[in-house]
């Protein structure tokens, strides 16, 4: 598929978003192995799940 081989030309909208990207986080991630990055994602998913459950509990208790 030719589209996938085309050069990545800068797009103004995306360039505008780039200034808010935290490059320090990216540099830290790039030091990790692929597996370590996925393990970190699993930890994040677990945390998000616990926060959602805590939110539901708090809403139930406030009724």
């Amino acid at each position, binding site marked *: *598929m030719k589209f*996938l081989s085309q050069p990545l030309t800068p797009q103004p909208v995306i360039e505008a*978003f*780039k200034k808010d990207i935290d490059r320090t986080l990216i540099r830290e*991630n790039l030091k990790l192995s692929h597996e370590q990055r996925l393990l970190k994602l699993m930890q994040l998913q677990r945390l998000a799940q616990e926060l959602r459950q805590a939110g539901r509990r708090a809403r139930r208790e406030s009724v």
Partner: protein
Amino acid sequence: MIDFPKLLRLLTEHDVAFLIIGGVAAVIHGSSRLTQDLDVVYQRSPQNLTRLVQALAEQSPYLRGAPPGLPFQWSVATLRMGLNFTLETSVGPLDLLGEVTGGGSYEDLLEHTITVEIFGVQCRCLNLPALIRTKRAAGRPKDLEAIAELEVIWEEQQEG
């Protein structure tokens, strides 16, 4: 939550032809964004559909968000009649894509992948430039920040 070790082992042990795209591919490339499901593009050959059905048969695949009790059957016939499936399984949410916007099919994407070893198995993952292009092609406003992050990762890799 996705049980990556179990899910990836199930797919590879059954010799399913698939490649990782989407948010998890972004994380593999260094993204720090949270994603909740695993998106994979799967090959649509009859043999691969059989392998895919066998790989997930014991993981209770069901249409995500659908009301319980629908006559959904996890079978080759179901896969053949559809293309893209958003599933909930006992090992986590899994999106099975027969094609992606701007990227095409498994065969179209294959030459734009890298092989990564994770949790003791080798998997194909869309390479970073192709991932950026498919996200650009999807044209979803919610992806703009994610695309910007991926392009910054690409820049960092080119500089490093």
